[in-house]
């Protein structure tokens, strides 16, 4: 299968690989997927306590090129957004931006799940109810 140029670009030059200190109150971590399914994404956000803006985002992904690109793109999009803005990121936006074929849509779904999971982790660390109910895609 041929990958789109954007997928290849993110795979070759992934943005924001790394690890944030998950013991920090300002850091939310989302770990989604499973090794035996061939995709595991860990996405982390660091929120500025005063402004409520996501000031940093990092990822590490075990998966195919499309999974790596989806999470790399997600970190790019997250930076500078408020939590509420971050929640509006839809997996289909990722599909469109990366020109993912139908068989790779699950990679974008996983990235969206990772965003929501990271936000929920941040919220529960800060004494907030997990606002977002996990979207069911299947």
């Amino acid at each position, binding site marked *: 299968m041929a990958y789109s140029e954007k997928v290849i670009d993110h795979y070759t030059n992934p943005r924001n690989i790394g690890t944030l200190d998950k013991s920090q109150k300002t850091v939310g971590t989302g770990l989604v997927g499973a090794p035996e399914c061939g995709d595991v994404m860990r996405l982390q956000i660091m929120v500025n306590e005063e402004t409520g803006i996501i000031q940093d985002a990092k990822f590490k992904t*075990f998966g195919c090129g499309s999974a790596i690109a989806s999470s790399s793109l997600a970190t790019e999009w997250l930076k500078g957004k408020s939590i509420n803005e971050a929640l509006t990121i839809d997996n289909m936006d990722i599909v469109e931006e990366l020109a993912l074929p139908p068989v790779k849509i699950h990679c974008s779904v996983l990235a969206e799940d990772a965003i929501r999971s990271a936000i929920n982790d941040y919220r529960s660390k800060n004494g907030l109810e997990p606002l977002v109910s996990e979207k069911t895609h299947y």
Partner: protein
Amino acid sequence: MLKLPVYLDNNSTTQVDPRVFDTMTPYFLEVYGNAASKSHSFGWAGEEAVDYARCQIASLIGANEKEIIFTSGATESNNLAIKGVFEMYASKGNHIITLTTEHKAILDTCKHLEKSGAEISYLSVAEDGLISLETLEAAIKPTTILISIMFGNNELGVVQPIAEIGAMCKKHGVLFHSDATQAVGKIPVDVLTDGIDLMSFTAHKMYGPKGVGALYVRRKNPRVKVTAQMDGGGHERGMRSGTLNVPGIVGFGKACEIARLEMADEYLRLKKMRDRLEAALLSIEESYLNGSNEHRLPHTSNISFKYVEGEGLMMGVKDIAVSSGSACTSASLEPSYVLKSLGLDDELAHSSLRFGLGRFTTEEEIDFTIKTVKEAVFKLREMSPLWEMFKDGIDLKSIQWSEH
């Protein structure tokens, strides 16, 4: 100068040897007669070419030329052998024994026969890919008519104890078929000393053309017959109708002759290169060889790189043509059933690469492969959360994963 991509998928198919190609060309343009035409010189010349190739092929495997039945390839040979024996020997029994690590051409043929009343035992192999002779013997029943076990495995290169299995079959009066697609031309195969009654093989895995293969069918001790699976002109002693592919057969013959003459040297050259590649890749932390190290074809190496996902790895090694143990074509990944048969976790099965060296592989290409694979594995581990957890001493099995 290194030409990219590097071809290391010789277990899938091989380049035609230029010597084979040259031998074939006159049979397209000049000697184009139908080998079954008995009334003119065009036909006679075609028949003569086929007879000569039949001898070249037979002598590679220690057979008599009359025991070679031409087919379109190993898949057809496997179908003909198994379905043909099942039908021909129906009065003797309906039980067939095979392995879970066989090629789909065997497994799916067996599944097909189950609908027609066949009883099939799919035996498991040990974690090195080898069948235990005790397990095999215990599976034989009075109704067993056929044991079908491949010579060398296509994914792992593991070579089964064929001569021992052949002797066991003889002792129990059971026919022995072997899919020797990967073995013929690469390692010594002798239907007599190996005790093989039926054997499938094909030209394109040994530097011959695609679209031509053979089924060896023993004529003496015992005389084996298979029911034809195609009706027609009764070619190939009535076992396989259809006009013979003369240029293909001529190429197949030449490929067998070259293999017979050069196998000993080529075996050593390939094994040396393969071993060098393998040693370098196994020096990477958390990488594992799949299948028996000792009982193996000289040109195949199947390695899993833990904490790296197979398809991502394939993308990282796009300048090398290899096969992956994982077929990620849908949301549900399907790891190789052969690797799973060895008891590998899905995870390890997903992250495996099969390297298949060949006659035209160079030392320079091996150097390039080592460098490329190492770089890709390191890069992907840098971005793998699983690798980070492993390095932090976290047991991945202790984590509650969200299945998706």
